[in-house]
């Protein structure tokens, strides 16, 4: 991960993005406005959080399909604890939760689920695709059980700040995603852990023989992915002031799309966080643009798929790394 390579990966997806923006701002004068800018940023913040976690996983040549369900589960748990705490009727025990307590509980759930994924993958050699596919179903089921299928609503101002507040003229979710991104960049570029992630993705055998504790690194990475999904869950729940049991369905696909458009190779070992961020921006801009132009919902899907394909093709065309 020398810097030049990183800038390069950026550069590639930038082309796609720039092209897209030019086209859109020609088609709609509403597109290139400050407000709309914040809009897009706020809307992609969730996908960015998830996609960053996904990038780490993919760099180890893994994949995490469970993020969408985990997002829903953690959102619901935080909401539930905040609203009702824990009641055990039998031994009529009641535990109330502070805002912070509930939030932490949510995050830990996410990390825990992630760790479980990592454990299944490393200890039992279950292919990541399957382990997390199973978790996708399990976590969704748990969400429905926890919520009984009904949304959990109304937690008041304080919690709402996470999703809707502004700080120094910038929406809070944007701050959150920015922090997530910067941390991830530092980890991948500047820490041994980051190195190990790339090494494992590049050649797991060699990594092992270089004395790297592969299992440990993988479990950490999947836990991070889970925790970041939980962060996404917090933002969504707080924005809606309500935890929806069906939140986050198929978010994993958006995240993976962002990762791949960002030039990260699904076979692992190659890619950057910056690339993923740009991938997420491309998707966000696209969604926003299609609505601004009031494209028919039918056509939207066709266009969206087409653009994703195109973005990657441009990307490949410019990529010297092949």
């Amino acid at each position, binding site marked *: 991960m020398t810097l030049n390579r990183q800038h390069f990966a950026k550069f590639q997806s930038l082309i796609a993005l720039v092209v897209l923006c030019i086209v859109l701002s020609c088609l709609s004068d509403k597109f290139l406005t400050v407000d709309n800018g914040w809009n897009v940023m706020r809307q992609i913040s969730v996908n960015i959080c998830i996609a960053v976690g996904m990038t780490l996983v993919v760099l180890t040549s893994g994949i995490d399909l469970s993020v969408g369900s985990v997002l829903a589960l953690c959102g619901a748990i935080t909401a539930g604890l905040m609203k009702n705490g824990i009641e055990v009727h039998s031994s009529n025990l009641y535990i109330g939760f502070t805002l912070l307590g509930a939030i932490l509980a949510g995050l830990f759930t996410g990390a825990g689920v992630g760790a479980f994924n990592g454990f299944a993958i490393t200890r039992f050699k279950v292919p990541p695709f399957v382990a997390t596919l199973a978790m996708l179903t399990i976590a969704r089921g748990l969400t429905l059980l926890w919520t009984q*299928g009904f949304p959990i609503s109304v937690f008041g101002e304080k919690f709402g700040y996470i999703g809707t507040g502004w700080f120094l003229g910038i929406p809070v979710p944007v701050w959150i995603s920015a922090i997530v991104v910067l941390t991830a960049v530092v980890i991948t570029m500047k820490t041994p852990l980051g190195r190990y992630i790339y090494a494992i993705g590049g050649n797991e055998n060699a990594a092992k023989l270089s004395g790297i504790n592969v299992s440990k690194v993988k479990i950490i990475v999947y836990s991070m992915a889970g925790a970041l999904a939980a962060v996404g869950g917090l933002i969504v729940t707080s924005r*809606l002031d*309500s935890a929806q049991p069906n939140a986050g369905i198929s978010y994993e696909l958006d995240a993976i799309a962002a990762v791949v458009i960002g030039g990260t190779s699904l076979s692992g070992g190659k890619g950057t966080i910056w690339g993923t961020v740009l991938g997420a921006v491309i998707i966000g801009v696209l969604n926003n643009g299609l609505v*601004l132009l009031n494209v028919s919902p039918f056509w939207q899907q066709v266009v969206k798929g087409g653009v994703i394909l195109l973005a990657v093709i441009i990307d490949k065309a410019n990529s010297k790394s092949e």
Partner: protein
Amino acid sequence: KDNSKSAKPKKVAVIVSTLNNPWFVFLAQTAAAQAKSLGYETKIFDSQNNTATETDNFENAIAAGYGAILFNPTDANGSVVNVNKAKAAGVAVFCMDREVNSTTGPTSQILSDSYSGCVNLGKYFVKQMHKKGKYVEILGIVADNNTWNRSKGFHSVVDYYPGLQMVAQQSADFDRNKGLEVMESILQAHPDIDGVFCGNDAMAMGAYQALAAAGKANKVKVMGFDGAEDAIQGIKDGKILATAMQFPKVMAQTAANYADEYFKGKRDFPKKIQVGVEMVTGKNVTDYIAYGKKN
């Protein structure tokens, strides 16, 4: 009577189009609860908005020996085969909320007419907008024919008023978050809208939150559909203009009771019962609670 004859209690299946939407969860659970209270073993099947899955559910239910099915179809036409299959196997089917296009298949259909419900909403919308202004429609899942019944009902009225101009029609998949995001984007293109019609309450709440965040909450009139808890509360608080209250509870309980009577030997059921869809507005909201009337 039948009941006493067989040692095992008769079994009643509840097959519902989806459990990803609280309204249907409520419908299914009420039906199941009612049937249970009448002494039947019950089970809920989730068709996940997929008519093929629904077919599997029917086959499995029949194989598992259920005597009656309280049925919320995924599709008026696609579900016909399933109903007929059940009938052929001697299993009575009682449709709830959504219709199947078959007079012979289901023993009885207890329906709430989304279309006419939206016609009323449309009329009220026109009145509130004073026949003019720009409005936005937020659709549900565009592959779901319920989405279109509602949209059509609404437009069957509104489209007669040239003063009312639909500046954007977008889908938010019946999802609250999508409703919020779509509305945010639309507001960029059309800051000057006066009304929003949403295919369900979740999207209406999302749209409202977008408007509130943009400081337009009090200028723009938001309408939903379903009569969900949040929406009722929203109308009380003056956030939502109106919603259409269906009565899942009534439908579910009627269906369950019919099934009970069916087991007890009754056969002549009304082919169709329309459970009226009532419009909930600021005026009458106090008479309602989530998914039903106060009583």
